[in-house]
């Protein structure tokens, strides 16, 4: 998984993050695993209460925008195998 720079700084990680997930691999399960491994990221990718993706963050994988996929949809096989990263990308916004 790849995080935007400001979240890498917050989580004190460099480069990609590797997550080990048991059971179905979906947006929800990898975000659950991410937040369990890096509690400081709770609330930063998705709202703590509603669990909605923050609107200025997008989810990309295998050259596709998965941001609007249901959170329990299966992710591409290449992400499951670790061949391709799941990208959390900061939208071009702000000032």
């Amino acid at each position, binding site marked *: 998984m790849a995080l935007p720079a400001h979240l890498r700084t917050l989580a004190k990680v460099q480069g990609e993050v590797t997550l080990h997930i048991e059971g179905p691999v979906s947006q929800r399960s990898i975000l659950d695993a991410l937040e369990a491994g890096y509690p400081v990221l709770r609330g*930063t990718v998705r709202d703590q209460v509603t669990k909605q993706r923050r609107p200025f963050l997008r989810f990309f994988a295998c050259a596709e925008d998965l941001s609007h996929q249901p959170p329990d949809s299966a992710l591409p096989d290449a992400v499951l195998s670790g061949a391709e990263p799941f990208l959390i990308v900061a939208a071009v916004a702000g000032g």
Partner: protein
Amino acid sequence: MSKVRVLVGTRKGAFVLTSDGKRQKWDVTGPHFGGWEIYHLKGSPADPNRLYASQSNGWSGQLIQRSNDGGKTWEPVGNKFAYEGIPGTHQWYDGTPHPWEFKRVWHLEPSLTDPDTVYAGVEDAALFRSTDGGNNWEELAGLRGHGSGPHWQPGAGGMCLHTIILDPADPQRIFIAISSAGAFRTDDGGKSWKPINRGLRSQYIPDPEAEVGHCVHHIAMHKSKPNVLYMQKHWDVMRSNNGGDSWQEVSGNLPTDFGFAIDIHAHEPETIYVVPIKSDAEHYPLDGKLRVYRSRSGGDEWEALTEGLPQQDCYVNVLRDAMAVDTLDDCGIYFGTTGGQVYGSANAGDSWMPIVRDLPAVLSVEVQTLS
């Protein structure tokens, strides 16, 4: 030897400015949390090394940071701000019901006595409290639930709870202010609340003297006179002598009574400061002259303080939480601008000097006086 620590929140990080009691030479550290909006940071009166900071940005929402060493190092604490029960609705800009949604923390107010207790004023307007150093937050839901909540409406900056004043004489009494609902008070530690807006008059709402709907920008209280409150409203500078039960206008001879910041001299409870801003549409000083106005009579009679401040071509704003005072014998007063300057005065406003000139836009300024 006394020291002063000025905590500055900006659009792109936090900065800590320190000086000895002379307040002539300053050390600047930061940015802390570079790139993030720091709406507010403030120290605990009970433990000056305990600081809390509100960190947010448009991508990743809200975080709360805590320092136990005066701002040298920080650790993230709890950032779950869940409204109690079913949040319900308030009015949207077009008058339609709009669900209450948490957006950010505007103001953090540490307890006067317990470093682990801190209050958070948030947008959409609500008051939260933590009693474990910011790890967990609980809404004081009596404020939103007291009855007028469904009629509150956001101002241009959002529907934010931006002012929290803890009464030093009565731990059960808290004052808060919301843009643009007005001012409210609890006398029972936050269980029940009542609007305290009698005497406010606002031409921009259908009933200018309505119980709620006034765009209160900031309120200040002097610890020696907790029943006396001063308010910078959208337009009008106001004073209450009875804990907010009623208000009188004290704008007097101000060149314009629009503004955001208001504060009080540390040792003279009738000496107050405002920064007049031209108008609601033109958020900059009149005539390009940055002037702090001081009243030594609790309002009505004001004098311009200009020495050391730019008196031409100045078009910055001074936001509601961006003015503060220290408690040294010669009271220091500080304010930050949207142009990134932080000005300080070591003589109660008679003269000013820029401490820093080129920070990101300043959102908040707080001061700690350290022995």
